[in-house]
């Protein structure tokens, strides 16, 4: 079933056209990888889907579960099952991870007319999900991302993903700056969370992560446009040719 449909999306930031006619359809159960050189618009696409302010939609539309996504505020998108794993997770001194997740999960459950968790249930769920990303439970009582290493921040994003169980998860360069162990942990987290009812959009600069998370589709973004789509082989070709080649020649012929 179609989950997300992006049609001819054009987006400006401070008067520069960053996305120049994106078309993309994501169905339940699929993993899509979006690759592209720096400045191609990958992160802008992620931010626009998650509902960050400061972007001017010039043209096009985004349909998510039959809703006009661009009209929804960011928190409603999250409540409807959209999750963005940030490239640069924000530090929030004074708010503990536990309190943050408890607030988020309960807000989402309220929205979905589900019972909110009591403290004990919640703690057990958090401990279980923390195990998934191999985080010591002591991190739950630390302030959100404050003083976390790069790897810890990214693991915390996957922890939150596990807690919120989204329908559509967008990972914005989650692999950047990760060592091989953290990369494996992040990938295991994603693989264990994927199922036939959810979907992932994995934005990455490198092919590396795609050795661990096997995508169904790979799209190449350049100058705000998807210039080529294919299967996982495309990522390998891209690795071989490099982005310079694609910038000059456009499409890679297998």
């Amino acid at each position, binding site marked *: 079933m179609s989950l997300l449909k992006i049609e001819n999306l054009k987006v400006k930031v401070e008067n520069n056209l960053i996305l120049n006619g994106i078309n993309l359809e994501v169905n339940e159960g699929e993993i899509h990888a979006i690759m592209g050189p720096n400045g191609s618009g990958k992160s802008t696409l992620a931010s626009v889907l*998650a*509902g*960050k*302010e400061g972007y001017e939609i010039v043209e096009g539309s985004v349909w998510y579960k039959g809703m006009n996504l661009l009209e929804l*505020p*960011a*928190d409603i*998108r*999250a*409540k409807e099952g959209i*999750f*963005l794993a*940030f490239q640069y*997770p*924000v530090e*929030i*001194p*004074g*708010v503990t991870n536990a*309190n*943050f*997740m*408890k*607030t*988020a*999960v309960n*807000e*989402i459950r309220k*929205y979905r007319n589900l019972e909110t968790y009591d403290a004990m249930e919640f703690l057990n769920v958090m401990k279980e999900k923390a195990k998934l990303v191999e985080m010591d439970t002591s991190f739950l009582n630390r*302030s959100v991302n404050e003083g976390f290493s790069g790897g810890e921040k990214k693991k915390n994003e996957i922890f*939150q993903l596990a807690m*919120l169980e989204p329908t559509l998860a967008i990972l914005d360069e989650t692999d950047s700056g990760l060592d091989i162990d953290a990369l494996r942990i992040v990938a295991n987290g994603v693989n264990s969370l994927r199922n036939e009812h959810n979907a992932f959009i994995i934005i990455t600069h490198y092919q590396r992560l795609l050795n661990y998370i096997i995508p169904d589709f790979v799209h190449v973004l350049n100058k705000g446009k998807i210039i080529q789509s294919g299967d996982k082989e495309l990522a390998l070709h891209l690795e071989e040719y490099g982005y310079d080649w694609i910038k000059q020649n456009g499409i890679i012929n297998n």
Partner: protein
Amino acid sequence: MTQNIQNIGLTEIVARYYDDILESSNSAYMPSIIDIKKKSFNMLIKNGLPTLKNEEWKYTNVQFLNKIPFTFERISYITQKADNLIRSIINKLSQKNYLVFFNGKFLEEYSKIEHENIEIINFKLDSNSLNPLIISSFNKLDNTDSFFSLMNTILVESGIFINVPKNNQIDKPINLINILSSEEKNIITSTRTIINISPNSMLDLIIYNYSDNKSSVLNTAVNDISLNEGAQLNLLLYQNEDKNTITFTKTNVNLEKESNLITDTITFSRGFTRNDLNVNLTGEFSKARFYGLYIGKDKSFIDNHTRVEHKVAKCQSDEFYKGIIDDSSHCVFNGKIIVSQEAQKTNAYQSNKNILLSENGIINTKPQLEIYADDVKCSHGATVGNIEKDAIFYLKSRGIDEFTAKNLLLKAFAIDIINKIHNQDWVGIIESDLVKLLNLKEIN
């Protein structure tokens, strides 16, 4: 001594009171006390009520005080309301160790102290013998004295002297609870607290100010604190006063060798508050860490002036004040660091962070550094901003609505300071007062 005076100006009110006490034949002050009051009065007349031209009062307009008809009347009979207030506060304390004051007057019947190794004296200036430490504390007049601390010296009649003898760790905190309440009359109250911590002793002290007034109350407080060699003081000053309360505090702390001050100044008052905190590092390896949090609501005015003077080498000062400015409130932070020529190897840090929530709010923040030594580490910084947009988006992207996200972030900004308070009873009390003051949603 009871009289009502209409609009004659604050200086004149103090002058009439001064004439009254010194010329009345039944004045029972010791000659040394009369001498101190005289000196203070002369200085007060010479300085006058500060104006905006005075650098230390640049953002702090006190001229409105001239328009309030204050009376000297002492209102110290306990109303039912005051009784309820006192009991509700006492009930919140897990360790029942407190001295209660009402409109500046010590209430023995409400107070309860269980300490053997500590000397607590409710001194009266008209008694014929006073501890020499009390007299020497009153004698410390200098150029950091303002109109209001001088006024305190002139008007004050009694006070509290706490003396911790050598090698005593007083683990049970002492709470000084100051309640102000006046229903009709505009009154002036004065409190004086003198603390001496002898070598290698330790004290936890909380000074709590609460008021609920229907008329104006002008309250001056002077706290004079001496930390002798190796002494430590944890001091919390928590001010939660209503819109009719005008408070001036001056806290002087003198630190001898290897002594340690940890102090937090929390101001939630809705009236007019000016705090002067003067920290003098006079012995090597002494350390002072002073943090603060102020919340400006409605039309409140809150001014925190701090002054730390590194007089000798190898001392450390760590200052961190945070403020939230809402509605039409006006807050001032002025932090002065003086490093004298002898004070080599000084470490001095200062930071002031503000969140300005309203277009009508005003914050004046001013760091001042005077460094005369060359081998020092000093840093300072001041910021004024709104709640961080990136942080709001981060929370929203996790399904938290904008209102709740702002709530959470605002609370977190303040909790950062509150959580560093040493006393858990007061962490709880202050946190719940914060939630009420900022109309925060309780998040569990």
